[in-house]
């Protein structure tokens, strides 16, 4: 008890170096844990986005590219799927539901997606949840739009507001401003790219392009909205489709059928497999990042060891006093290991707390910047293992000075020569 108290007082007396050492450990803990959190957060976020979809179908392309532009809305399709092929494929017996997606237009930086009401019924995220409306209803009129929660909150939209859609992905440029849309529904937050999308009917996508030919407006041609409402405008093509099958067992067969579809070159990918492929690609970067963080941790542990070692000379007399009072060399050594352990535990506690504070602050920023919602969960078992490794590292860092002190106390005898 007294021994521990005296050791603590000795620590407090060196509080500046002790504080700096603890901070170094905290920073390294924050970094390592932060990298791990962002990594697993990104994976969860991506995996949650494709929840429930059996296959994603698009024009022939790489699995990853297809997944990225259709589900994550990153990048663009190079080719379309004709409406006829789409209908042909989804009329097959195995198909339980299908969601067509028509991409290409935007609204103030957010993507506009042409789809069908099936989108609101069948699209799933995060362990099978379906989309919910925070307000309003799915699109009904040709010029109705359903906006994601981020779109609504960022742009301040509420039901009944009118908006115009731009041609292409840019936030400026030639637009379809002669054909305003009315916000009919606002989706509840999902933490997926849906939050950053606007949804209109496939016919609406056709309608706003009636007066356009190959990317530019046909001079002098303006078809009024009411006229468009009466036109039958069957979609000519879609960009991709998300398909749910009646049975998981049919996935492989169905995928083969799509990949071998004769009328046009198509690809069907299993989202899980494509994600796996993507993680395989970024794994090297992830490992490198984790490696660098681990190095930072090692550096902080070396600092801890050096800090305690550097105090040994001035504590030589203290050690001799303890020895003369009957403390064993092992007791003297374990005081130093205890010191290292205490500082590591403090570093871990402060680092973890600071990381969570940073996560709370950074979460919306990361979400806005990268569209990745890193959920704030209590430390996972991976995190716990990392922290345990750091703790063991810290304890180990105490062994070098402890061993030195042990040797010193044996060599010095009772008196310290000054």
């Amino acid at each position, binding site marked *: 008890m*007294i021994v521990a108290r*005296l050791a603590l007082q000795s620590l*407090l*007396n060196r509080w500046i170096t002790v504080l700096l050492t603890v901070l170094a450990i905290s920073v390294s803990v924050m970094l390592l844990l932060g990298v791990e959190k962002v990594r697993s957060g990104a994976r969860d976020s991506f995996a949650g986005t494709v929840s429930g979809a059996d296959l994603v179908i698009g024009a022939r392309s790489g699995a990853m590219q297809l997944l990225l532009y259709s589900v994550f809305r990153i990048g663009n399709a190079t080719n379309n799927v004709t409406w006829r092929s789409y209908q042909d494929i989804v009329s097959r017996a195995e198909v339980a539901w299908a969601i067509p997606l028509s991409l290409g237009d935007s609204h103030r930086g957010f993507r506009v997606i042409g789809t069908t009401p099936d989108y609101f019924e069948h699209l799933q995220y995060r362990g099978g949840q379906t989309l919910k409306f925070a307000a309003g209803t799915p699109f009904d009129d040709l010029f109705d739009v359903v906006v994601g929660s981020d779109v609504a909150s960022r742009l301040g939209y509420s039901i009944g507001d009118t908006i115009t859609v731009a041609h292409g992905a840019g936030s400026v440029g030639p637009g379809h401003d002669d054909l305003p849309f009315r916000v009919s529904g606002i989706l509840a937050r999902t933490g997926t790219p849906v939050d950053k999308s606007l949804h209109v009917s496939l016919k609406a996508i056709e309608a706003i392009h009636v007066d356009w030919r190959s990317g530019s407006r046909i001079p002098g041609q303006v078809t009024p909205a009411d006229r468009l409402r009466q036109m039958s405008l069957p979609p000519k093509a879609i960009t991709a489709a998300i398909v749910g099958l009646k049975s998981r067992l049919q996935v492989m067969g169905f995928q083969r059928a799509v990949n071998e579809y004769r009328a046009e070159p198509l690809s069907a990918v299993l989202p899980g497999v494509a994600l796996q492929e993507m993680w395989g690609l970024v794994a090297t970067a992830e490992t490198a990042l984790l490696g660098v963080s681990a190095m930072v941790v090692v550096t902080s542990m070396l600092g801890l060891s050096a800090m305690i070692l550097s105090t040994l000379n001035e504590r030589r007399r203290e050690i001799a006093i303890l020895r003369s009072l*009957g*403390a064993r060399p*092992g007791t003297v050594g374990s005081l130093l290991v205890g010191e290292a352990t205490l500082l590591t535990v403090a570093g871990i506690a402060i680092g973890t707390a600071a990381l969570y504070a940073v996560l709370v602050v950074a979460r919306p920023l990361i979400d806005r910047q990268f569209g990745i919602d890193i959920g704030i969960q209590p430390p996972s078992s991976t995190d716990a293992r990392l922290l345990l490794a750091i703790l063991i590292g810290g304890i180990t860092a105490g062994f070098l000075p402890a061993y030195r002190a042990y040797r010193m106390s044996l060599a010095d*005898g*009772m*008196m310290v020569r000054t």
Partner: protein
Amino acid sequence: MEAQALIDAVSLRGVEYKWNGRDAFALSVGALQIPRNERLLLLGPSGSGKSTLLSLLTGVVVAQAGSLEILGQRLDALGSSGRDRFRAEHFGIIFQMFNLLPYGTVIDNVLLPLSFAPARRTRATAAGGAEGEARRLLSALGLPADIGRRRATTLSVGQQQRVATARALIGSPEIIVADEPTSALDDDRQQDFLDLLLGQIDATKATLIMVSHDRRLARHFTKVVELTDILATSQREAAAT
């Protein structure tokens, strides 16, 4: 109890010790007998091996040859942790200076040896509670009543020596070893300090072994031994200095 008194506090025969290192200091003691309740002064000049001898007696270092009995216990029969335990229980040690753990309070410094010596703790507790006993010793050694809470570093050298003495005495160990405890004090303080120390030694009937180079202290002791009479030392000089 009679038999107890017959056992010597210290009994040394043919002890040889050499510090680690190629040309290190070596010493050998033919024989040294210190009966219980003795107040022994060992006199020797600086570098003559006084502190080394005390390290040997207290079992901090181990003789390479010879036999060394303390209170009837052969030290070489004890393992290293056994010797540490033995030292904690039976010795109170006072150094020349810097006796205290600097950041601790005075009271913690005095109580510290009890952490390593259960029997001394029991005795101190029986004598009026460990803390009470510590306070009693501090005031018996002429220290102000409120000194217990102060940090060791805030005391004068003389006060530190008295605190160290209280620490050596707490729990009444049988042997008090003092390594030039007065050499950092001026003459008046030396006198005061010795009177207080010897008074307490009388009270607990402990054996006192003190080393010094100062022969003026001789009159306070029941026996005075010149180290040169019992020690043979050697230290080859590394080349010509």
